């Protein structure tokens, strides 16, 4: 499944669905894992950047989708989430 980003919060439009080609995710490896191990597991071409203990920012030029990443990491006790956007209030 592709990541559909809903812009309703900004646009007030519940139907608007556009897809971004690039995507970023955070992986928390819980005491195990390394950049090379992550690269092996996710298979896709990506930039992997450590951002603190056991946490990595993964940048994809082409979004593989969260479902696929979850499947690839199924054997690992890692947590993955989109690199979510926040905004000034």
């Amino acid at each position, binding site marked *: 499944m*592709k990541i559909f980003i809903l812009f309703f*919060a900004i*646009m007030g439009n519940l139907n*608007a669905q556009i897809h971004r080609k690039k995507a970023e995710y955070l992986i928390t490896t819980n005491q195990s894992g390394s950049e090379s191990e992550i690269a092996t597991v996710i298979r896709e071409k990506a930039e992997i950047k450590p951002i603190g203990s056991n946490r990595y920012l993964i940048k994809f030029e082409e979004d593989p989708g969260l479902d696929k990443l979850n499947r690839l990491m199924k054997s690992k006790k890692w947590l993955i989430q989109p*690199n*979510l956007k*926040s*905004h000034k209030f």
Partner: protein
Amino acid sequence: MLKLFILFFLPISNGSAAVFHGKKYVEGEILVKYKSNTTPTFQKQSIENKFGSRRLKKLNTHGLSHVQIPKNRKIDEVIADFRDDPDIEYAQPNYIYKISTVPNDTYYSREWGLKNTAQTISNTGLGGPDSPIATNNPGTVGSDMSLETAWDTVTDCRSVVVAVVDSGVNYNHEDIAANMWDGGATYPNHGYDFVDSTNDPMDKNGHGTHVAGTIGAIGNNGIGTTGVCWRANLMAVRAMDATGSGTSASIVQGIDFAVANGAKIINMSLGGTVFDAAENSAIANARTSGVLVIVAAGNEGTNVDDALTPSYPCKYTQDNILCVAALSQNNTLASFSNFGINSVDVGAPGTNIVSTWPGTHSTITDTLTTGWNFSTTTAGGWGYKSLNFGTATNTLSNPTTYNHTSAQYANNTDDRVWKIFNLSGKSSSVLEFYLMIDSEQNNDLFSIKAKSSTGDPTSGVELDSVSGSTSGTRYPASYDISPFISANTSIGFNFNSNVSITSFGVNISAFSIKSLAPNNITYNVISGTSMASPHVAGLAAMIFAYNPNFNYTDVLNSIKNGGIANPSLAGKTVTGKAVNATNALAYINPPIGGAAVKLP
């Protein structure tokens, strides 16, 4: 000029001032209240039996005496001994009180949240880009945080590091520089930038500098504004870019940095509508380190507790989070402020807040009618097109026959359009436009490109690439183009379709570039729950400074319990209260052995 009319609680001839729990008192003197079942004679004898103390005066007929203690005895020991006496109701230092400490800062009279005189807030002379909102301007006398009396107790919060996790801070600003955190040789610019991963957290938006000034602009220095704290220890943590947008990664790193480098308070005037496990975890880690996190409720005017309209971090459940709603100048919940009886704790001033700003702004508004360079592989690619969005609007459209009903773009396009802009002298620039798109998802891509030299920016950096549909509405897009600032900044749009399926295409309207030219003398007036949160963060710093042994729970309790009941917050916040600095400080300082007493 600082008014320093010192009134002594009692007429003292030769006592000098000292400090007890952060508050001034007359050295060598205490007040003692005996229980009502004791006689005056007994009271006098009892006093003299304690270290040779002497009753200077019987203050009333209810057992309150003014007592001189021996010079060689410490006041806390003497008070402790009196307190242990079962015949004594309470004993306390002979505190020194002052009438209203008023700072002399130029724009203090516009800081209604600190002192509301029903003044009309204007932006005259501030130099910033924004104007005040007219609603409830002016407001109501006295609808403020009651800071002038609180400043009698605390103005210096330098013992408490407050991290501003935001768009950075102009740490050179004339009214902030001396109140910045000292990061030593490792962090010479008073913090860190987790957007660009550098040690320079300079603000490229303005939001963070405004927030920082509300917490701790230098007070009583004769210029600008005053913060809630006159002296502060502000850590700049840049987690949002020039557009005012941050990510899980930048914010989580910012929180971790603040905790690791000694912050006691983190202000987060930011948020989103999606639960962020990494952010939630970082705040939980901050809790483990005893760090208080003050957050803004959000500006959608909705109920945060509603599953359809959540706001995070406000809605996280850690007990080290205090979520703040915005009050307007007449002491009512601001129309834009989120609320929530389970999530939003208190209200604080949040409309027409005057504070520091990192520079002046300028805007290039493009008419989308001239000067663009077109390179299209198919006939009828990019072109100027006037469309009706309620009013006639100039757009760049692909195809040139765009009408969002029937005309469709061609297959196999590689259509490009770009223009050169002079952005020299700017420290940051943000590209803004409205985008309407209908294209084959994942295959027919609209891309935004930029580079810092003249010519087609296709060879430059791709800022974004999207496909799909905005379903007939215009999506407001914004991009930080600061890395490409030059005299020949090239901004372009590409549209690439494949061999199959076409749709209505793409159009761009309301194109502008907003830029910041930095200086250290600008101020601005803006509104939002972002502005309410730092008022409370400043108050939290005052409380921590006043009692360094307090933990975050003590500070939260002081703020919540010291608040003033506010009808507009009843049923909409956890406490139903607006924060009040005087009460919050009084709450944590009950007379020893007795009941709480408000400061005058």
